[in-house]
């Protein structure tokens, strides 16, 4: 048996083999962009323990696994009802990606006026018009080799535009359904653009249909126009063999708000990175989340907020519960640039360790160059309060029940930040279910 691996060379080889078949290989700027990015990836390589941003997340398990590009043959689903959904039918507009590919058949065909959604592959085959401006190189691109890898290999994804002054009636639910074939990798690229004065809720459901190993390396570019609001929620419940790496970069304009929430229970290794730039006055962001891990799961949440303009606000509340040998990582950086006076930035991370072998590593960071600011972070880590546990047991609850109740309450507090009631209820159910399945 040939031992394969996904080290740097394997990905470069994959690029070399597939570059002529990747979408848009005939579009000069795109081909050039891919070439530049694979060169950057080659130069920087996969992150290692010495990469400061990846200090606590080791990609070695990924490297031991070989991945092939996603196959183009689609798994056929008779109808979209077979597919999981988060919100009840009729209460959301749903788009479906199967193994990284957009499935028009399984997606709702009617979107409200003012909402335009196309798959990345179709945008590219139509000449990639307007795309160039959306996938410009990021600042600090040398720190993000996996984004470069995505740019080199991206084959599908979605391009979502919300026109000016549109309040989208129902949330847009995007299902990323993976695992069709074992050992595939998907490099999806998404673009969300919310024009000024609009309001929309996007819920991404990342899940799969079996225990196949796969590697999803997705990149999303978000722009929120003046006075617009984007609620961007993400529920990651992939199987415990999957590798999920995602990087979202949001630019928030004057008076606009980017509000995100992540519930992560899945994947063997997940790294969910969110970078937000508050570029104009009165822009704000909320980066909230909750994660649960068990067995040998590794869950990394990394955020960075750049306050680039005066009167900008961010708050972050993240809570995690870890059992088994699971490891949780939270890295949160708040940067207040020189001009960003009157900034308010608050961040908190609280972790609860349920088992003897669980581990949590935290790096909250403040980098402040303006003086008229109020910034803070708070982190705690510990186990369930024994007094509380005893109190509940003395009232007749079993240890498991009491523990579940306390952990539930601990996590539920984080979920409170979710604005969509239907989703909030669903998340609470997910938390209870998780606790039932993982009594630790």
């Amino acid at each position, binding site marked *: 048996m040939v031992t394969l691996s996904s080290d740097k060379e394997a990905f470069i080889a994959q690029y070399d083999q597939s570059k002529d078949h990747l979408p848009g290989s005939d579009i000069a700027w795109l081909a050039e962009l891919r070439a530049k990015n694979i060169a950057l990836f080659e130069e920087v390589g996969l992150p290692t323990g010495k990469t400061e941003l990846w200090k606590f997340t080791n990609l070695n398990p990924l490297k031991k696994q070989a991945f092939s590009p996603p196959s183009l043959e689609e798994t056929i689903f008779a109808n979209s009802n077979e597919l999981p959904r988060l919100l009840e039918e009729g209460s959301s507009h749903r788009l479906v990606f199967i193994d990284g590919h957009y499935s028009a058949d399984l997606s709702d065909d009617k979107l409200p006026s003012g909402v335009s959604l196309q798959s990345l592959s179709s945008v590219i085959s139509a000449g990639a018009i307007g795309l160039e401006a959306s996938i410009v190189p990021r600042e600090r691109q040398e720190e993000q080799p996996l984004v470069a890898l995505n740019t080199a290999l991206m084959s599908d994804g979605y391009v979502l535009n919300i026109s000016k002054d549109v309040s989208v009636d129902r949330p847009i639910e995007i299902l990323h359904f993976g695992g069709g074939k074992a050992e595939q990798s998907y490099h999806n690229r998404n673009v969300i653009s919310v024009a000024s004065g609009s309001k929309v809720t996007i819920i991404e459901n990342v899940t799969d249909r079996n225990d196949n190993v796969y590697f999803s390396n997705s990149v999303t570019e978000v722009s929120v126009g003046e006075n617009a609001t984007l609620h961007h929620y993400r529920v990651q419940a992939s199987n415990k063999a999957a590798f999920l790496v995602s990087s979202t970069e949001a630019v928030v304009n004057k008076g606009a708000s980017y509000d995100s929430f992540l519930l992560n229970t899945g994947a063997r290794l997940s790294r969910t990175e969110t970078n937000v730039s508050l570029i104009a006055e009165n822009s704000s962001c909320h980066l909230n989340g909750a994660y649960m891990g068990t067995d040998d799961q590794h869950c990394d949440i990394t955020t960075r907020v750049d306050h680039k303009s005066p009167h900008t606000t961010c708050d972050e509340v993240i809570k995690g519960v870890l059992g088994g040998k699971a490891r949780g990582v939270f890295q949160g950086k708040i940067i207040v640039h020189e001009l960003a006076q009157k900034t308010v930035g608050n961040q908190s991370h609280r972790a609860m360790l349920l088992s003897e072998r669980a581990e949590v590593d935290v*790096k*909250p960071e*403040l980098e402040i160059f303006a*003086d008229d600011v*109020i910034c803070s*972070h708070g*982190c705690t*880590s*510990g*186990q369930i309060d024994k007094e509380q546990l005893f109190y509940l047991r003395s009232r007749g609850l079993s240890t498991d029940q009491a523990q579940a109740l306390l952990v539930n309450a601990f996590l539920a507090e984080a979920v409170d930040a979710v604005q969509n009631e239907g989703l909030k209820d669903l998340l609470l159910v997910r938390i209870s279910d998780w606790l039932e399945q993982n009594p630790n």
Partner: protein
Amino acid sequence: MAATQETVEQVQKLEMDKYKYGFVTDIETEKAPKGLSEDTVRFISAKKNEPEWMLEWRLKAYRLWLTMPEPKWGKLDLPEIDYQDSYYFSSPKSMEDRPQSLDEVDPELLRTYEKLGIPIKEQEVLAGVAVDYVFDSVSVATTFRKQLLDVGVIFCPISEAIQDYPELVKKYMGSVVPQGDNKHACLNSAVFTDGSFVYIPKGVRCPMELSTYFRINELNTGQFERTLIVADESSYVSYLEGCTAPQRDENQLHAAVVELIVMDDAEIKYSTVQNWYPGDEDGKGGIFNFVTKRGICKGKNSKISWTQVETGSAITWKYPSCILQGDNSVGEFYSVAITNGRQQADTGTKMIHLGKNTTSRIISKGISAGKSQNTYRGLVRVAAKADGARNFTQCDSLLVGQTCGAHTVPYIESKNRSARLEHEATTSKISDDQLFYCRQRGISEEDAVGLVVNGFCREVLQELPMEFAVEAQQLVKISLEGSVG
């Protein structure tokens, strides 16, 4: 300790200029040839009349140093250091034959220390403080040695300890900070010239404060001191170091190593008032202060407490740390770091919890003014076996003016569920309302800043031995002069 405040009232204000320690002592010196090589290492070892094992230890470090990279992870704009453009040994000529008593010390040196406010006369220094005076590369005097030896306490220059107590030195030197720990510590291991050695025997509570005063005088000369303190079972010592240097346009390197070893039920309280020359307003000159300080709580119920007031140096890079190995051991870190002008500081601590029920406490107060950058960097690590470990960390930063930066980079790693870790950090500017309130009561703006900042630092300053608290408060105020208005 409310005594701090009372002291302020009792002791008259010291009149200080902005950097009153900037003078140069004109004294004839003997130096090693400029630059760094194996010959330099041999020269230093020969000057100190060292045994062969010491020279070998140094050479091993030197060879390792050649292979090591500069640590680049600090949030510091570090200029390239030309290690060949510096002297590694400089000693006043008069020290050639070591004076046998304080009366034999060169009058020029005596005058220097008088000017610095710490005269080398036992009857004149603050009562109850024994001082080791280190001038460039040598210890020029150590007070109260005999009195201390009477109770079994060894307090002497480390160069003498190598001669007189080789077994103790061999056993402990490098045991907490290995030669290869980092490039600066490695350099120190190769070329250290003096420093203090302290041994507190079992059951002894050191009867007086011990102190070392470091002075850099010579141009283009680095200072590489090494301090080793061993507190045997059930002993206690409080140790303080102070540092100053002349005002010069050239940068000078100071790379020190401090190792603390604490046995069962013993305690070391280590305080630093660091006031090396910070450079001028435009960032010209000043000391590069690269210091590795680490202590190990080897025994159960042992305790290390670091207190530092860092106001000087062009660049400060130091992380006094505690390895909490003994069960129930305690580590503390209290820090005030003030940067003004173009100063850069990257400082903090590491608390490594290995033993059960170990406790650590970190209180850090950073103040940035002028065009300076001030970073707290810290690590709290709880190993899997450290059941019941506790940490509390509070990092507060204060910004004075619009052109400075304040940064907080904590790392928190827990492998034990029964560990309880709490970390809080805040950053804010000095409040206009507080300043107006003070001014309305008649206090000038500059004094108001001093007052408010001293209040902000109080939790840390009150940890200093009383004799030094007053000076530290003055220093805090002076360090911020010119930062408002």
